[in-house]
């Protein structure tokens, strides 16, 4: 009789163990509490580019901001087909013809639809100081690698969000020093708004007529 009792006790305790394993309830914490308790001081040392993957180091420039650590953004000049511009535009006196499309020659395909309200011309951003640099509306010359400095003069809020991380796109990784796309990776500076288009469709295999998996054929 005792043996039988012992046997049942073993069975029951075994069952309880299994049950405990199945429902391991945790204390409810809000995410905020968790962040406050477990926050790490993950200082990314971005004083040099050594923390970046080797192939990335040549592709990025450093952006500093008033508050918070610096970050990197993708270079632009490598993506530009005809850079440096001074290969053609050698003299500073080059005038940019806006209205006459045929006179634009190599830039025939540039269709300026930036701000439909008008007031934009080639020289708004390209200036006449140096053809290899961009020009802000307050007259500073900035590198093609930092288009944000030009955009900032009108789109201050967006650039501020971009520097913080709320606008724009992360590049490849969430770990280590932040790398972000620059403004012109996503926005065509001459036509910056996003197009209306058809949504994506998906890879599909048609359903087979028979749903009985004993007779279902093999995939293809």
């Amino acid at each position: 009789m005792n043996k039988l009792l012992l046997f049942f006790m073993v069975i029951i305790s075994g069952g309880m163990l299994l049950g405990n394993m199945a429902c391991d309830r945790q204390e409810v914490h809000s995410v905020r509490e968790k962040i406050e308790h477990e926050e790490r001081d993950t200082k990314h040392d971005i004083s040099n580019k050594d923390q970046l993957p080797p192939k990335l180091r040549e592709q990025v420039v450093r952006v500093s901001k008033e508050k918070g650590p610096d970050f990197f953004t993708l270079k632009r000049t490598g993506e530009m087909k005809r850079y440096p511009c001074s290969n053609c535009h050698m003299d500073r006196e080059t005038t940019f013809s806006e209205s006459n499309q045929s006179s634009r020659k190599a830039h025939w395909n540039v269709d300026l639809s930036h701000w439909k309200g008008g007031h934009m011309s080639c020289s708004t951003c390209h200036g006449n100081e140096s053809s290899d640099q961009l020009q802000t509306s307050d007259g500073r010359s900035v590198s093609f690698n930092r288009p944000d400095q030009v955009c900032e003069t009108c789109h201050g809020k967006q650039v501020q969000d971009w520097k913080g991380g709320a606008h724009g796109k992360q590049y490849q990784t969430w770990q280590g020093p932040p790398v972000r796309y620059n403004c012109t990776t996503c926005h065509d500076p001459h036509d910056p708004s996003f197009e209306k288009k058809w949504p994506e469709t998906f890879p599909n295999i048609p359903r087979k007529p028979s749903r009985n998996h004993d007779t279902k054929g093999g995939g293809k």
Partner: protein
Amino acid sequence: MTEIIGSSGNSASASGGCGSCAISSLTSSCSGCGPGGSSTGSNSQVQSPSFHTSSGNRRRSGEEGVTRRSMLKYLFGAGAAATGASLFGGSGLMSMASGPDNRASNDAEFFEKNYRLMTEGEKRRRIERLEKRYRKERGVNTDISDSDAIPGVLYGYAFNISKCQGYRDCVRGCIEENNLDRESGMQYIRIFEKEQASGFGIEDGDASYFHQVPAEGHFYVGTQCFQCENPPCVEVCPVGATWKEPDGIVVVDYDWCIGCRYCQAACPYWARRFNWSEPQIPASEVNSDQHYLGNRIRPKGVMEKCTFCIQRSRSGELPACVEACPTGARVFGNLLDPDSEIRYILENKKVFRLKEDLNTEPKFWYYMD
């Protein structure tokens, strides 16, 4: 265990006949597999003709030469399976039905532990078995990782509703990355189109729009698994097949799941998906970079869900949806890193979460410019 599989030579037998029920322990939906049906092996996607013959030969030889030793082995195996079945709620009965030749590999599958209780060696052997099976059944070479959570990381996600244009590039990226079933058209991500005047709830959103986007006067709200900090789906699972990892990702042990779909009913965000049939993915489209708890090809009859692309995020990459988004509406990062993009958003933008009153504490925030 590995040796048993090797000697019986057909890890495919599990899939061939009634593999899915052996793996998923799903008895209810597996009415089709009787003792005979299992040996036809017609369910797998990529098959060599030799499979049938070898399987048939093995079965015959098994029938002819019943020695005392093999008889004992069979009795012991059946007895153990029956004990297991009674312990685990009768889920193993079908593995016995698939015949003596399949028994060895089925038992190996059946006596598999819950992922959280496996030792490193057991995990490795399990993964080897899986890779072998995928090679045999589907003709794909896979690399399955079992990487653990990175210490000091809690993943968080932000979605910019003023930026999303409804292009659905994220959905495509997700399908391709996570080996989702192409036949049922399974998708983890839903993009709801909503009228601008209608507020933020998803109940009245249209997730099946097909017209040029963005539509005038509409905005787009994307949903997927929010990896809740207090996940109701984990609470209701009767077998402990789903849990929250230390880095905040809610995962499913596909081999432990019994397919009861309680979690699907419990999720207030409609984030969980069920495999009604064996996932069909052309071998050329299978993403071979896999994680045990993530995008490895699921068996039939189990639940699956978004894991923030655990195979990518744990190696430092961004989830496929973040990478695919052309508008930058999706932001991913470490909530415990005060310099991360996600933390900037939480601290500087207007953010909200869906159904916050349920106290599920999703780690997925919506924000506006």
